[in-house]
């Protein structure tokens, strides 16, 4: 049995017929070819698959594609605008927040979600907010710095925090 779903991913709308058991992460990767979202585990622990669904960070390995029907999804591929990196991406680059890069899309999306709700987090808040994301390469110190870098950068470019709350829904 196939189910029809319609989703908006990175501002583009897609209609697909999918098996009810198809995981969102497999839908994004195998059906839409958006392979920036990764799979690092099978128990919902690693966060490599993190995307934003209707403005909230979710582990896309723990959501069925059918549950996302009608939803708006933002993946790492949709963060940069007109060839300009999002400050969170830039932060990871500036602060050497990645090595192998496998955890990075999930880390970036989780950090993005964190900064939406808390534009100026402390180190402890960053570490706590990213508890659901594992990185085996960096020891996390530079990931923390990357988020702090982005937080500073975003404060400079977008002084009022209010509209950012809905940024996850703003799709292109």
């Amino acid at each position, binding site marked *: 049995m196939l189910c029809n779903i319609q989703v908006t991913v990175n501002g583009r709308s897609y209609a697909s017929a999918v098996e009810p058991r198809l995981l969102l992460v497999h839908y994004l*990767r195998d059906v839409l070819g958006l*392979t*920036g979202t990764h799979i690092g*585990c099978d128990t919902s622990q690693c966060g490599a698959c993190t995307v934003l669904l209707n403005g909230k960070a979710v582990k896309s390995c723990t959501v069925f594609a059918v549950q996302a029907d009608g939803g708006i999804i933002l993946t790492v591929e949709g963060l940069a605008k007109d060839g300009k990196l999002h400050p969170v991406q830039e932060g990871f680059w500036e602060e*050497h927040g990645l090595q*192998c*890069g496998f955890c990075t899309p999930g880390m970036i999306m989780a950090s993005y979600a964190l900064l939406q709700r808390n534009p100026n987090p402390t180190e402890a808040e960053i570490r706590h907010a990213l508890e659901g994301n*594992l990185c085996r*390469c960096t020891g*996390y110190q530079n990931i923390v710095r990357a988020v702090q870098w982005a937080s500073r950068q975003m404060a400079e470019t977008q002084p009022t925090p209010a509209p950012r709350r809905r940024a996850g829904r703003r799709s292109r």
Partner: protein
Amino acid sequence: MVISKLVGARIKRKEDPRLITGGGTYTDDVRLPGMLYMAVLRSPHAHARIKRIDLGKALSHPGVVAALTGEEVKQVCDPIPALGPIEGMKLALRPPLAVGKVTHVGEGVVALVAESRYQARDALDLVEVEYEPLPANVDPERAMRRGAPVIHEHLKTNLAYSIKQSVGDVEGAFQRAAGTVKARLVEQRLIPLAMECRAVVAHYEPGPGTLTIWNTTQNPHVLRGFLASMLHLPENRIRVIAPDVGGGFGSKIDTYPEEALAALFSIRLGRPVKWAEERMENFQATIHGRGQLQEIEVAYDQDGGITALRVRIWADLGAYCQTFTHAIPTLTLTMLNGPYKIPNLAWELYGVYTNKTPTDAYRGAGRPEATYLLERALDLVAHRLGRDPTEVRRRNFIPKDAFPYKTAVGTVYDSGDYEGALDKVLRLANYTALRREQQERLQRGDRKLLGIGLSTFVEICGFAPNMPDNATVRVEPTGSVTVFTGTSPHGQGEETAFAQIVAEELGVPMEDITVVHGDTLTTPQGYGTLGSRTLPVGGTAVYQAAKTVKEKAVQLAAHLLKVTPDKVSYEGGRFFVEDIPDRKVSWKEVAEKAYSPPPELPADFEPGLLATVYFKPSNFTFPFGAHIAVVEVDRETGDVQVVNYFAVDDCGHRINPLLVEGQLHGGIAQGIAQDLYEEVVYDQNGQLLTNSLMNYAVPNPAMLPSYTLEASVTPTPVNPLGAKGVGELGTIGATPAVVNAVADALKPLGVDPAQVQMACTPERVWRLIQQAQRRRR
């Protein structure tokens, strides 16, 4: 950007733009038309005979195309080779699928392919296998005793090899000793856990008869050679590509069954085949790290000088020798002296097969095991003598003017300044103030005890004199440069570091340099990225190839400028005649002329502007350092937190400190992970109890501290870069530091430091506290 100085520029990575935008290509991202998906049925038993396999139902499941059993694979594919077997050892090679018997939980029994991932997975449930369970070997010490169930019957024993040797007068030293200490230490098994699990795509094209393999490998050339011999294919018809690889930490050095199985299906069916490991498979089917039981005995004089060391090691090899399984524990022996002048040593090493996943290289690979036992030993001596651990270390260090230094075990160290590193880290940590705070907490009776742990260490890196590596530096006709390397970075950032070396040497902007790696079609035979070798060996080859190219460019420029080469200077992308700066020719012009030589060039001028160079180091390199871990131990709950971590590391010259620090952060994190959190647990039947991220505690961001680093720089004479390699340094230093800190914190409660074992989980620490208190009552 043109860098003005090769050493020391903190340059942002060239590889990042693709990785932060989702534009990387990892193996599981490769999609080919008509691709099939492979799944592997794995043994639920640690040790069992396979009585019957029925593929009927699985094969008739929708989408399933073919299936293979071990017996079928055996006809067409040899077992995975092991590199450099130890003389006289009993070698158990891993067949791609189990034949007749399974020897560990997770061993592959049946492989099948289907039109989709989900169909392949569904079909696994329909394969029927009947097993006759056998008693399992879990403990290596017992597995080598008479009467233990033999895993590989043709070998007649589970003892793969034993090594027994001594240097100096060990017996005499023990008789004359002022005191001796003993300990039994456990180096628990670990899961390497690269965030990207393993994956392979095999694509056989019957027309040209070529097999292309995309794989999560650290050394594509070695994999190509292994596959050629296993599958009986000519090596030059196999192309192995390591695209972006999501970490390895040693676990992706090995050749695994799935590479051969996917290739077999692809050859048979003429369609591309993909396999992507799941995390729970990764726990069972990818090698484990460490796995040693160590008995140590130390003799010392009244000043804390170590006069002799006796070591007995049982290495838990697991069920097979896979690639380097057998060799890793021997590296522990190579480094038994550490940074100390211990004159008399005796060692016994038993490599033992058990009914578990094979062990192999995991970050540090044999050297953290050596550092760990030594650093624990030095602290035990200090404890016995009532001295500060720094004092005992100073008493035993190899002095900095003694290099090159041949240790008693026979390893020749290149360069070092161990006491210098110790001094530096003591200042960095403000050691005296820490000790003061520790005392104050005790006097106040604080619930949280402070522990200060030291580790001073040296490691063997830059693998190896018998593993040369190569680079091709090719200047294109427009002047941009392509660099090809036989190393295969997977997170280390060599696209950046190598570009820096070339930019410095050729004066070409970083953005005009592209580094190509991980493809056997485009790069000459290399040994990949492992053993902290990429920069000291591969980087040196890059440097030398760039130098050769530069010399040729100068020659060509001299011809064009009609002067002798010694009159030519080069700066800012221009060759010019000294004293006549107007007589000049640009880098781009020289590059272009190299490929379309004008008539005025001498007839014997060979066109082209490129060089391929192999570098064979004369020795390994020996990076070193000194670490201080500061922990808080909750005396009520046994919980341990690392509150501060100070590290002074010396990897010689740092080409890019940003990358070096990144390696150290990650390395230290993995050391702390072994100290406090991670531990593979098997039950007595050989069932893997820690089989997923649900029950194996890989530290998340909230479980680790920030690290305070400082560099010490003692260049190596072994290569012209003076760089020693840094990939494993952090892990090697951190492993003993944190445990020594925990033992240090617990001493005032009466806990015998020799009793502290990894992983220092709250339960284990709490039990130690309880036992000590019971004894005191």
